[in-house]
């Protein structure tokens, strides 16, 4: 493909094929101002005009610097679909594309009216999973609130994890991002939090905003007296207790019974957190005859037996 100098005024100001976030890039700006554009942009000659396929940032800077022309590779494109797929392939070879970029690429393909074959090519190029709701999911990612898209790109969130936002309203999405940003919550943790809250909402048939408010999540997250870790732990605990209220009650009852046992210092009692494995495990570290005697005395005490009875009622 030949490289030509194309006057800027002949290039449409058109972001149709742009799938990357357009952030200011002062370093690139300075470089172009100093040495001009070294890497050609890609243009498609389509229906009597040049349309940009790549190099949107360079074109923007060239315009801001009042440059006359830019070096460009020209694709003669009666059919823009294969040309665009070529651009995607090239980008993919150079770097990992984010899930938001993938969603935008899918959107461009949709607007071009691409057929099944092009979709199959794209799926292979972007390693998209084979799932019936894929197009719908990509569509919903394109509609995510800008703050969510930024978060997804910042943390390189996978398509699977990016799904967590799809059942949420714009307002709910923004609330979660506020929480994630305030507490620097990474996607894995955020997925857990959103999943639990979503499930609470489904079970209680209650909007997530109301549940978040009732649980005081923002109050905790913005409390200046707490460290980040304490805030995160408290938030998770509050959510878990609401999601699993009965398990929480049984666990509390077990802890209460455990406390009232007055265990000797060298003994401890454990049980399966899920309450599935029956019974409790009593562990004792015996280092002397006294340890053994005190354990025997404790085991034969009435309070110990009563506490065990209470525990065994549950487990």
């Amino acid at each position, binding site marked *: 493909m030949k490289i030509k100098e194309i006057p800027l005024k002949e290039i449409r100001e058109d972001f149709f094929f742009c799938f990357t976030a357009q952030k200011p890039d002062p370093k690139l700006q300075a470089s172009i101002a100093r040495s001009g554009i070294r890497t050609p942009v890609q243009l498609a000659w389509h229906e009597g005009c040049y349309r940009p396929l790549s190099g949107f940032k360079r074109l923007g800077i060239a315009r801001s610097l009042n440059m006359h022309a830019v070096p460009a590779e020209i694709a003669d494109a009666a059919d823009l679909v294969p040309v665009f797929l070529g651009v995607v392939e090239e980008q993919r070879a150079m770097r990992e594309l984010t899930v938001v970029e993938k969603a935008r690429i899918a959107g461009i393909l949709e607007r071009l009216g691409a057929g099944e074959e092009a979709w199959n090519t794209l799926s292979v190029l972007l390693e998209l999973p084979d799932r*019936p*709701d894929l197009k719908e999911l990509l569509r919903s990612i394109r509609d995510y609130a800008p703050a969510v898209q930024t978060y997804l790109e910042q943390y390189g969130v996978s398509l699977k994890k990016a799904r967590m936002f799809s059942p949420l309203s714009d307002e709910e999405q923004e609330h979660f991002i506020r929480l994630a940003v305030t507490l620097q919550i990474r996607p894995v943790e955020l997925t857990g939090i959103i999943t639990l809250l979503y*499930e*609470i909402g*489904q*079970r209680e048939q209650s909007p997530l905003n109301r549940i978040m408010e009732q649980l005081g999540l923002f109050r905790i997250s913005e409390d200046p007296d707490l460290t980040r870790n304490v805030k995160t732990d408290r938030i998770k605990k509050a959510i878990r207790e609401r*999601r*699993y*209220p*009965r*398990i929480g009650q*049984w666990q509390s009852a077990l802890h209460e019974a455990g406390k009232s046992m007055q265990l000797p210092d060298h003994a401890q009692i454990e049980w399966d957190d*899920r*309450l*599935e*494995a*029956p019974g409790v495990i009593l562990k004792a570290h015996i280092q002397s005859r006294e340890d053994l005697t005190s354990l025997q005395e404790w085991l034969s005490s009435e309070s110990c037996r009563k506490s065990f009875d209470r525990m065994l009622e*549950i487990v």
Partner: protein
Amino acid sequence: MSGFQIDRIVVHPEARSCALTERILSNRGDIPFTVADSVKPHSLREGKRTLFLTQHSGQRVKPCPATASPYLCCQYTVIHSCMQCPMDCTYCVLQDYLESPVIELNVRTDIIFGQIEAMLADQPHRFFRFGTGELGDSLALDALTGLSGDFIDFFSGRRNALIELKTKSVQIGHLLQHDPGHTVISWSVNPESVIRAQEMHAPSLQARLDAARQCQETGYMLGFHFDPVLYFEDCVVQYRDVVRRIFGSVDSNRIAWISLGSLRFPPSLKSVIQTRFPGSRIVYEEMIRGLDGKLRYPRPMRMELYSALHHEIQKADPDVFVYFCMELPRVWERVTGRSPAGNAELDLWFARSLHERFGSELNMEQPRSDAYTPDKPPFSDRTFSA
């Protein structure tokens, strides 16, 4: 009302000349059919309307896959004749368990019968319970296949076996002409509210109980499966009502067994349910990952449900055999006051109960405990050929 339907029949070339294929094609009415090596429906919903007739010569009669220890299982034997189901229940594990979304029917019943005969001959003193309703509904497609009649006739008069036809369907008219001797017809039951919300295309509870009464009057033994028992507000009241309606509809002397099993499923099914049935809330109840890795209600919740049901059943008829499907010995003990020592003993309990209550009509020999030893796996390590 049941609302499922078969839209097309696909016949594998190798199954084209089989007798059962001929029968199905002659019963098909205006359902179109084609001959093809494979079927690829676009969705499970479409697959559930497609009947694919195949012929497999591999092992089609196998022990119930059950679940991992320490949960107890009853050593049931599953006949893999039909896989997948035209009904569409939110909680159905087949959505995730079976690879193929179409209803696949193995038309080589001669091979299946041969495999059953080999098993029965191999362990002549063990009483086997076979079933066709584990990977599909035993009766739902009978108007097309007439298959249940073949099984009823095959088992009739066998000394050490019976067949259970497990269903939600009420298509029982054709069964009334067969010898009911060694057949248990059993219904999966749930409160009407659950049926309406979670069991798409399945008949109402009342219709199932009416069908059960007709079968009982013809001489069949009956079974009822509270499986899955779901937890929801008011569930205890509603499940108690189901028990009362069962005992008010049929003669409890003809009930061979009642099973109780709470909702449980592999974690991978959760997203399938969420995607396919966004209106269903069953996956949002409190659940834990059990010792076998499956999601299930916490044990105290299960025991609460089971205790209410068990108590109601005991009140109605203390002689009816009640068992738990995939439950812990601890749950057995707490709810019923006793627990089998293992799967083999549970199998023996079934045999003893059947012998005690239906021994003469089943022409059963007295169950011998040495025929149910845990050391001798029934047949899982061995292969049988026709």
